[in-house]
């Protein structure tokens, strides 16, 4: 048997902040700030209680969804949302392709690279609702503003992720096609496109899904679609209709999910 050592070793996981005093001060400051902000919110228990009792009534309405009384406008809203989603995704795809190629560092000359990256950054900086407010102000209420919003934000999303895919391609395949004397566009279609196509289709289907959900949100600020219908239902306190709308939306998102996972499996 091995002889046991009498000495005990001590071990503790090293702390992120080494000095114990500093650690205590920092914990204290974080706690103090939390308390301060809580007080500054001026939380009124009265209002919370009132809200709770009111929401009971609303919840009751939510459990009795009413598809019928606003059936027609729900139908119209859904169709409008689907149309917006579809059109915006298609345009987004078409416009994003040149930016994706431009933003791929390995195939793009520097000035075009920076230009494309700038467009992507602008498109990705703003949340859909912010863009929608802008377009509603510029061209007025309705689905047109919605389509422009969704197209614009699709461009940044698709171009960025696709550009990353292009940057990851296997370059030897490109060289091999180049060595046959192929022209630049031929190179793109024979050596690069086959390598990125599956991912591209996957992304496009995913974006379709995102755009449908976003179409509901931007409707609230007046950019058309089911969101506008939903907003109107809330404004009139018709929670049973609102509930019906939400259920339809969940159903559609679920269907979209099934569709996109089906497509992705097919691509493998």
């Amino acid at each position, binding site marked *: 048997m091995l002889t046991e050592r009498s000495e005990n070793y001590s071990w503790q996981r090293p702390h992120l902040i080494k000095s114990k005093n500093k650690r205590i001060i920092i914990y204290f400051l974080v706690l103090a700030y939390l308390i301060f902000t809580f007080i500054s919110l001026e939380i009124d228990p009265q209002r919370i209680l009132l809200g709770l009792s009111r929401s009971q009534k609303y919840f009751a309405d939510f459990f009795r969804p009413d598809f019928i009384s606003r059936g027609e406008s729900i139908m119209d809203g859904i169709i409008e949302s689907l149309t917006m989603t579809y059109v915006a995704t298609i345009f987004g795809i078409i416009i994003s392709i040149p930016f994706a190629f431009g933003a791929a560092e390995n195939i793009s000359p520097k000035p075009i690279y920076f230009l494309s990256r700038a467009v992507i950054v602008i498109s990705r900086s703003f949340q859909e609702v912010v863009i929608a407010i802008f377009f509603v102000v510029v061209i007025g209420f309705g689905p047109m503003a919605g389509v422009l919003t969704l197209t614009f934000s699709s461009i940044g999303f698709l171009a960025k992720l696709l550009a990353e895919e292009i940057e990851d391609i*296997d370059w*030897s*395949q490109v*060289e*091999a*096609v*180049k*060595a*046959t*004397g*192929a*022209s630049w*566009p*031929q190179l793109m*279609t*024979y*050596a690069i496109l*086959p*390598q990125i*196509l*599956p991912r591209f289709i996957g992304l496009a289907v995913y974006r379709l899904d995102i755009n449908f959900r976003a179409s509901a949100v931007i409707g609230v600020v007046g950019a058309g679609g089911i969101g506008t219908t939903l907003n109107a239902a809330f404004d009139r306190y018709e929670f049973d209709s609102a509930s019906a709308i939400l259920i339809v939306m969940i159903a559609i998102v679920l269907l979209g999910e099934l569709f996109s996972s089906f497509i992705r499996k097919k691509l493998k």
Partner: protein
Amino acid sequence: MLKINNLHKQYPGGDLALEGINLELKKGEIAAVIGPSGAGKSTLIRCINRLVESTAGEIILEDQDINQLSKKELKEKRRKMGMIFQEYALVERLTVMENVLSGRLGYLSFWRAWLRRFPQKDINQAYQLLERLGLKDHLNKRADHLSGGQRQRVGIARALIQNPDLLLVDEPTASLDPKTARQIMRLITEMARERELAALINIHDVLLAREYVSRIIGMRKGKIVFDGSPADLNKETLTTIYGKEDWNNFKNKDQENSASEGGNDLADREKRKLQLAASSSN
């Protein structure tokens, strides 16, 4: 047909990969380029079709200096140079047929290529090549579903369908098992002879080179240090190419090699090959 004068290549990092290469290749002449890793073999081959731009010197192919060509002229010239790669470099997601036909891209308009509308003559030639290479059952398989040997045969077909005058081959057998390696080497040299193509074949396997090729070019540190027949490879010449080593196991069995396939003791050859490989890796 190919004449290289005083070719230099310095990579941006400062690596001097080629230092004054002079080389002439006649029509139909096949040469193997051997040399240690980093000698500049790949760089030499890539300078010829300008996948790599050389820094000085001339590469004259059929009376034209490749380095002086415009982009358009270069594309036309590239059609005349077929390239075969070590890792096959097939477009993985395209079918065997598409990969072979991509060798014709230099002759095709963009729209025909995009729509895969290849001329009947090209399709016929692709069929013939694939049949000859034993791949006619795999026409519509995706390239990434093939074995290494099959992929390299697709690579050969893609190079040959260009109807090139010159084959540039960069370590065609390095990723293959010994038997497949021999098959591939035989196919490349056989088909180049039939078509009277000049060929430059980079290869690490000296025994394989000796067996299939009548001219050996040895490179070391960016220079050509040996240029002769396989029979001239001996202890001293191998030392000039690869550096000092115990080359005693490497006997020049020229008679045996020139005797036809069947008579060889393959096991013995493989043993020697392994010994050589073990001793040449630093």
